[in-house]
């Protein structure tokens, strides 16, 4: 599904990613962990085409297509979704209008007719339940006045609406209490199919108790320095990152 080869990226001339190699197959869930500043969020930003970052080297193939050649909105249409670490507020724009634009743009890209208003609202009702988002929340402006937990639930709600092939969850667990974490994780698990893949970016083992990864990577100084099974996350939780730094000869 996703093949990242020797990916280098920088922001304001400073290189953050220094040769990432990563392959994600359909149905797999990968966790990417690592200390602060190792490049985790940069990787997710680059994959969805955030214009603040410049790719200087390497390639990314998604479903056989050159992902880096696609505009951000087309990457979305092709099935790449990012659950933002800090979802932005868009005052005055209702969730209904926002989602209707998103869903219908995607349908247009795939040569499907726009959904009728009633079909669309039905879809919203159905998907809302998945993350226990109440009706009032959906009729409010995008993320405006939402609590931290509500914002993250809203991200997963949007994921449900857009049915992506690859979802990147960037620190979706940060700022969530246990109940909210369970709701969000349940939502992600319910959306999982044998064809869809997830990349979880997280600091903590906590999220991985709810969403089981197949593979765990450690990102350090812009490179993936260790890859193993779920047991690696437990080990990191117990021992921290210092032993990895040591292994790196520091």
């Amino acid at each position: 599904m996703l093949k990242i080869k020797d990916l280098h990226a920088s922001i304001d001339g400073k290189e953050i990613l220094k040769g990432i190699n990563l392959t994600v197959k359909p149905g797999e869930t990968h966790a990417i962990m690592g200390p602060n500043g190792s490049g985790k969020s940069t990787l997710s930003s680059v994959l969805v085409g955030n214009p603040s970052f410049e790719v200087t080297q390497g390639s990314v193939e998604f479903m056989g297509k050159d992902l880096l050649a696609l505009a951000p909105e087309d990457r979305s249409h092709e099935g790449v979704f990012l659950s933002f670490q800090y979802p932005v507020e868009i005052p005055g724009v209702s969730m209904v209008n926002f989602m209707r634009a998103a869903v219908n743009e995607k349908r247009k890209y795939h040569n499907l007719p726009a959904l009728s208003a009633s079909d669309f609202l039905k879809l919203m009702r159905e998907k809302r339940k998945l993350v226990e988002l109440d009706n009032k929340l959906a009729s409010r402006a995008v993320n405006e006045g939402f609590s931290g937990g509500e914002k993250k639930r809203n991200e997963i709600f949007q994921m449900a609406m857009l049915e992506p092939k690859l979802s990147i969850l960037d620190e979706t667990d940060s700022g969530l209490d246990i109940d909210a974490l369970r709701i969000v994780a349940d939502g992600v698990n319910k959306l999982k199919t044998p064809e869809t893949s997830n990349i979880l970016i997280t600091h903590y083992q906590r999220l991985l108790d709810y969403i089981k990864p197949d593979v765990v990577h450690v990102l350090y100084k812009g490179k993936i320095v260790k890859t193993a099974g779920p047991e690696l996350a437990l080990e990191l939780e117990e021992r921290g990152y210092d032993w990895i730094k040591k292994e790196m000869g520091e």
Partner: protein
Amino acid sequence: MEEANKYVKQLTQEKYKYGFTTDIHTEVIEKGLNEDVVRLISEKKEEPEWMLEFRLKAFRHWLTLEMPTWPHLRIPEIDYQAISYYADPTKKKDGPKSLDEVDPELIKTFDKLGIPLQERLALSGIAVDAVMDSVSVKTTFKESLREKGIIFCSFSEAVREHPELVRKYMGSVVGYRDNFYAALNSAVFSDGSFVYIPKGVRCPMELSTYFRINAINTGQFERTLIVAEDDSYVSYLEGCTAPQRDENQLHAAIVEIIVNDRAEVKYSTVQNWYPGDANGKGGVYNFVTKRGICKGESSKLSWTQVETGSAITWKYPSCILSGDNSTAEFYSVAVTNNYQQADTGTKMIHLGKNTSSTIISKGISAGFSQNSYRGLVKVAEKAENARNYSECDSLLLGDKCGAHTFPYIDIHNNTAVVEHEATTSKINEDQIFYCNQRGISTEDAIGLIVNGYAKDVINKLPMEFAVEAQKLLSISLEGSVG
């Protein structure tokens, strides 16, 4: 990047879809302005003597005036002798035609603008007075409205058919001495609409006037006069477009509204004159004086405007709250892109007791444009318990444009409660990228965000116009973020 620039350029140039010209024989009088021209216009309109007198007084006064320099606008010198002051597209070369027959070319033009002049094709519940250049082409539903006692006709017809009403009210709210452009208009105005709602009548349709400039090197100077008698109600809409030309064109209008006891008038404008091209060449100069008086007790006047067009806009739809317990509202969205300039706002003059006014102004600037809100809230000595709430928000797209707010508050009564709030914000890249990630293109994202920002004002428009206005906002800003 090259590709992207080309795309942006294409969009900004294509965006104005009303830029076509109608090829029709138009009788245009010679360029220039003097007393003979004023007399000629009056003669062409077969006006009574009192009307000519009014025009001449206004003209002589205009000669003593200078163009106002206080607006935050850079207005190139206007040569008033290089403009033709009368253009009539309804006059055929081969002799006069009956008034009821409208040239099919004109019907086609208005069809193209989405304004069908055949009553059977009309948008439900909307009567239209269609004005092209200096002449009203056709007014629909005139007869059926007449059955209720409502007068809805061209201004010229009103002068002929209802001289007593025109004489009584014309110039009573905006006198010819009011300002430079009001004096000019009073001297050379050609057509416009007249609305009279009798006592106790609720107008069953939306009344609207569609102004179209077509002829080259002409100015359009129309007047609208709306009189709402006691306990009546009317909602009136105004739309405007012009062809895409390299030369600037002048449009200087006057709107006067009189609202009597417990009557209510809603006046909505969607102004979409040709704004000029991406480099600031061409476009309409829109210098308009609009004012209404809440004359009666508990009367209500509400202005809603969506201003997206014109190279330069100078316009302050205002209210005089002279009746006790009267209410006035001003809701405005003004969008400027490329090199457009707008200096717009309102005046709320509180004279009666327990009067209240609301001002909601949303300015959106993009490109190299300058967008100013200018407003006055005045509470006179005898205006006990006056209340005003003002909210002026500015939204900036990009860093080459300007947003300015000039609020004036002048209070002469201690019981007044006046509130003023102002904000300035920028559409940030994070918001746009968030939309991009959800599959919404940058152009569409800006449209969504701007419409969200202007929602409070758009919601005040009648429904058909609200949908149009939403589209217009997005189109006006296309290509504004590269």
